[in-house]
């Protein structure tokens, strides 16, 4: 087990708003090893994006309060100055976002935007930087990079724009690439291309990847380890196989059960998770999933601890049910032939 590249310990992020304090991230811990892909899965309001942006220092602002530590090579990024954080961004940590059209500045050429990223961190002449930009475009699979380097973003298609974003993010060889819903806005065939690309490039550039999405199918393809987030917390954590083949958290069952799956016969009715995600200003007492959980019982009024209740030590969950109870109820939920539990 190698030293983790990034260690997040008990991270919390809250924002002061007119309606109260929003506890967007509430006690999240995980580690990222070199060369691995960590997938963070969750729905809107789960805190996954805020976590990612906090790693990059993009949530710093007047209204934000942080707790815990984000240790990158031993340094706590939460306490680093704004100026210092600037040097980390782009060179050690690269990020790509969901909508490639709006994420690129429409008035500058693609090449200019890549060169800007390179020259922000390296003392290198314009010509040399441009050559590197062309090489990067080639690496991300853009045809005719020598001429396309001078195109404007609106002259690229959605998939190509996302590739350009990846080129920008990887331009300074960061150790970690954070991808925040990079394929959500893309067509499914383009999505497949981009997921493939990220997989290949992570080896080429020797980066680790944090891949955030709500799409469980994509996570199954690319992630080694997975974090399932709900209402600002990690509710389940483990390897890919743990999460998909032995999920311990009723929320995870709900997610897996409510997707119409192509690899299984059609069901009459989809399993649903009733209700809506909770408010982050006044989260429920005890287990935050309790109001929506069909298996809740008395103990759930007490905040469940995130710990390993199964044999696999890396597989953690936040549910008081015993492992046997879980497995029994789970199969009733996820199995495609029976009605929802």
């Amino acid at each position, binding site marked *: 087990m190698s030293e983790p590249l990034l260690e997040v310990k008990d991270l919390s992020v809250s924002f002061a708003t007119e309606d109260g304090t929003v506890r967007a991230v509430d006690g999240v811990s995980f580690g990222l090893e070199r060369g691995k892909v960590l997938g963070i899965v969750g*729905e*809107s309001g789960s805190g996954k994006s805020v976590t990612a942006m906090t790693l990059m220092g993009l949530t710093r602002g007047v209204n934000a309060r942080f707790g815990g530590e984000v240790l990158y090579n031993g340094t706590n990024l939460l306490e680093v100055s704004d100026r210092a954080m600037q040097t980390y961004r782009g060179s050690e940590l690269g990020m790509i976002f969901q909508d490639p059209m709006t994420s690129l500045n429409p008035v500058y050429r693609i090449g200019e935007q890549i060169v800007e990223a390179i020259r922000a961190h390296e003392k290198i002449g314009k010509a040399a930087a441009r050559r590197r930009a062309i090489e990067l475009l080639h690496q991300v699979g853009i045809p005719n990079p020598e001429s396309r380097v001078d195109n404007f973003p609106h002259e690229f*298609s*959605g*998939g*190509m724009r996302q590739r350009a974003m990846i080129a920008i993010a990887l331009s300074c060889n960061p150790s970690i690439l954070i991808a925040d819903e990079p394929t959500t806005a893309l*067509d*499914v*065939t*383009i*999505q*497949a*291309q981009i*997921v*493939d690309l990220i997989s290949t490039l992570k080896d080429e550039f020797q980066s680790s990847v944090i891949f955030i999405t*709500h*799409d*469980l*199918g*994509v*996570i*199954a*393809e690319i992630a080694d380890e997975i974090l399932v987030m709900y209402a600002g917390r990690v509710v389940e954590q483990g390897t*890919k*196989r743990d999460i*998909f*083949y032995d999920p311990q958290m009723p929320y995870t069952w*709900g*997610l*897996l059960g*409510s*997707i*119409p*799956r*192509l*690899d299984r*016969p*059609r*069901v009459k*009715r*989809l*399993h*649903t*998770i*009733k209700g*809506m*995600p909770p408010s982050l200003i006044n989260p429920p007492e005890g287990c935050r999933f309790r109001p929506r959980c069909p298996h809740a019982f008395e103990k759930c009024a007490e905040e469940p601890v995130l710990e390993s209740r199964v044999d696999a030590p890396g597989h953690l969950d936040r549910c008081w049910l015993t492992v046997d109870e879980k497995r029994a109820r789970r199969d009733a939920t996820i199995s495609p032939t029976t009605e929802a539990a």
Partner: protein
Amino acid sequence: MSDTPLIEVRRVKKYFPIRAGILQREVARVHAVDDVSFAVHEGETLGLVGESGCGKSTLGRTIIRLYEPTAGEILFQGEHIEKLGRRRMRPLRREMQMVFQDPYASLNPRKRVGTIVSDPMRIHGLGDRASRKKQVEELLETVGLSPEHYNRFPHEFSGGQRQRIGLARALALRPKLIIADEPVSALDVSIQSQMLNLLEDLQDEFQLTYVFVAHDLGVVRHVSDRIAVMYLGKIVELAPADELYSRPIMPYTEALLSAVPIPDPDLAERRERIVLEGDVPSPINPPTGCRFHPRCRYATEICKTTEPPLVGYGNSHFAACHHPLNVGAATLATVGEPAPQQN
């Protein structure tokens, strides 16, 4: 179920002109929908699936004449409606309604929910204020909201709830046909399944017919009886839902299905992924012959020159391809395709 389809579309085209030059003459066209024909029977759900630029949304809107068709015929309950004037069209509009994709943009933020849902009734002169209010309250309950929400504004609701409001509005006139244009794409997974179940319940309760436009193949398979796969303005495959997924005939369908990620790591690793090269070409200058040929791994000369017709392969399964997949020699013989089998 009568024999006449509820809605039938014959050779419909919708082109958008691109103008340039001193006199703003049409220099090119966007072939958004290019010669599409199909029929939907009462009580059925037809799924329209495809990627961006394939024309599915445009087709959905053209069917109910939100866009005027450039050519072709549209028949509603056996009657031609493609050329009807506004007055004659009005009563028919009650029978066809639409639900939109973006729950944040499709509700007027300045109107209260009650007004939004009752407006259709008011416009068509149905009932009086009191009876409309009562109907709206019932509709709100039917879609899973509370009658008290009558006086609230859209911004006070979540995405999923707004989508329900949009549904209530679509149902206000008791239409026969609802075109659902990506109704769940903007919703979270757990809310999505609630919405899909609701759509099914409503279909039974109100005897609705759906044309369900979506890009998510899993969702489309779940809700549809039959599915039409569109590519660059044309229907390239049309089949009953299960049939399409177990036996795709057109290589594009095969590639599309292969691209959908499966939430099962072992399966994901094992399956053969067909990753299509390149981007979807522009509908302004579609490729000659079979529009998919530049990206098709089975393409040959004939694919570049001749457009394949949509032919039947038995079992109500139609596809447009010179080299159909998953089709046995026997079936090919009945269809009369002389091309050698490739797969």
